[in-house]
């Protein structure tokens, strides 16, 4: 009798300890912080006191906070909606946040009452989440959720253009590229103070849904028996996303694809469990956005451009190929 040798499947790379990954990514963030502080339009080197505190520090902190918030909300959305294409930008939530921020900024509300700016962004993002669930239904399949997101993105972009056309200041319409594609140029410590509290609160909310996401990944019915109802989990994710993405879009404009790319980059290292991805997605998103911001500053010094390219352009250049690759796997 012949012994047939069974062909075993290729051994999967061992899943790393999440704490090690978080530590390594945080170290990367620290390194990028140092580069970001030393680098800017005034050249490479230790900056003067004013440039350090008023320009480089706000920019670096915002890149970390907004990037971390975007990465975290992307991971939470992908886990909660059980859809590998979920991303606050793609689903139109960032666009709605931008509309809210624009409505508050260009009509002078944010001048009189500073916190109105992130509040406008958060209200916009919250409405966006509600509309998304409304369009897509309670248990949306992969494609139908993305379609709802595409519709919401289109509506929010149109509303954004309309709001900017009607704005009282004649320079407003030219600023549409900032609101559609984001940017961290000329931000100040005021913006950090405005965006940091909601970003941190939203981040904490999203970090706490890890166990619920793990239960959800077993299926809705099983999760319900474990005491994790889908509706309340989605509400928590929506609230955390509205806070983090809303405040981020209000000060940094519409940056997309960070939330899409970060979980996919982390899955080979940390496995498929959504709860494991959440803590690592914060430093991963922060590092990604900070890297993009440094590149954008380098572009001014290297290319013959009079102003920095938009941040969203770089993240889209990275994220769009990802999107195509993932979409092929999901719906071949």
């Amino acid at each position, binding site marked *: 009798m012949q012994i047939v040798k069974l062909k075993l499947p290729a051994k999967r790379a061992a899943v790393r300890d999440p704490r090690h990954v978080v530590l390594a990514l945080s170290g990367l963030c620290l390194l990028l912080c140092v580069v970001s502080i030393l680098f*800017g*339009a*005034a*050249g490479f080197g230790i*900056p*003067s006191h*004013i*440039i350090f505190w*008023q*320009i480089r520090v706000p920019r670096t902190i915002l890149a970390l906070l907004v990037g971390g918030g975007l990465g975290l909300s992307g991971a939470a959305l992908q886990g909660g909606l059980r859809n590998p294409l979920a991303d606050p930008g793609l689903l139109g939530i960032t666009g709605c946040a931008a509309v809210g921020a624009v409505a508050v*900024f*260009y*009509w*002078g509300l*944010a*001048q009189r009452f500073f916190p109105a700016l992130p509040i406008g962004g958060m209200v916009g993002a919250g409405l966006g989440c509600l509309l998304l669930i409304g369009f897509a239904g309670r248990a949306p399949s992969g494609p139908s959720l993305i379609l709802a997101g595409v519709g919401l993105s289109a509506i929010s972009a149109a509303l954004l253009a309309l709001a900017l056309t009607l*704005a*009282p*200041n004649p*320079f*407003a319409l*030219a*600023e549409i590229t*900032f609101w559609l594609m984001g940017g961290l*140029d*000329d931000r*100040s*410590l*005021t913006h950090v103070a405005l965006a940091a509290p909601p970003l941190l609160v939203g981040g904490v909310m999203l970090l706490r849904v890890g166990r619920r996401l793990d239960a959800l990944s077993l299926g809705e019915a099983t999760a319900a028996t474990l005491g994790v109802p889908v509706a309340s989990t989605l509400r928590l994710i929506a609230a955390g996303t509205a806070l983090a993405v809303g405040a981020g879009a209000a000060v940094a404009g519409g940056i997309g694809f960070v939330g899409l790319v970060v979980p996919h980059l982390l899955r080979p290292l940390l496995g498929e469990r959504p709860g494991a991805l959440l803590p690592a997605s914060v430093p991963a998103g922060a590092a990604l956005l900070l890297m993009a911001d440094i590149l954008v500053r380098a572009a*001014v010094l290297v290319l013959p451009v*009079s*102003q920095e390219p938009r941040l969203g352009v770089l993240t889209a250049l990275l994220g769009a190929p990802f999107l195509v690759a993932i979409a092929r796997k999901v719906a071949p």
Partner: protein
Amino acid sequence: MRNAATFTVILLMLMNFMAEPTQAADWVVSLNLCTDQLLGLLAPEKIAGLTPLARDPAISYISEAAKAFPIVRPSAESVLALMPDLVLAGPYGAQATIALLRERGVPVLQVGLPQTFDAIRAQLREVADVLGVPERGEHLEEEMDALLDAAPPRLQPPRAVFWGARGQSSGPGSLGDSVLTAAGFTDVGTGRRMALETLAAHPPDLLVVPETPAFPSLATDLLDHPAVRRIPRVVVPPSLIICGGPWTALAVRLLAE
């Protein structure tokens, strides 16, 4: 003798057809903010219509007076309905309207965008002549020269830059540059966008910014960034420097103080 006379008459008639309108116009429409202001100062009684921009206090020097002047939308239909003797226009904008008006035989005078005070003087004379009021043109020119001469000369011109919305700076050969030089400064603008960090790293002695508009935008908020708040600054109403004209000398006086 008769041939010579005929020849001279024919030559004069040809010259009349070829030249721009030679007799003074009495009923004039303006299609451009800059010509609005010139018309409003030189010959307000001859105005058939100005653009709606003339009444905007943020950009027009004659906004108060323009409330009494007739306004016309810069379209060929509305302009033709007024049957003007002359239409004043700028080099850009309303091209299709101007072409239509010329086709209908309406005389159109297109003036340029003066960037230096000499160019402003030349344009003032040209427009005043066409309007048939050369003495008023001379009067405005004298007032402008008086303001310019009043600016004290400086031994070591301090460095200054016009920093406008979105960081746009005055460059060599521009109107802002002429104003700064006339006020006794050295213009350190590049003519292109000047980044916030560049300004903070090498601050000029004086920053000249336009007045903050009533409503914010990212472009105009940039001028208030904390990084450049320490640089001494002078605020100039944009209505004085959007168009080059005798009122631009008032900007020089503001800076010279």
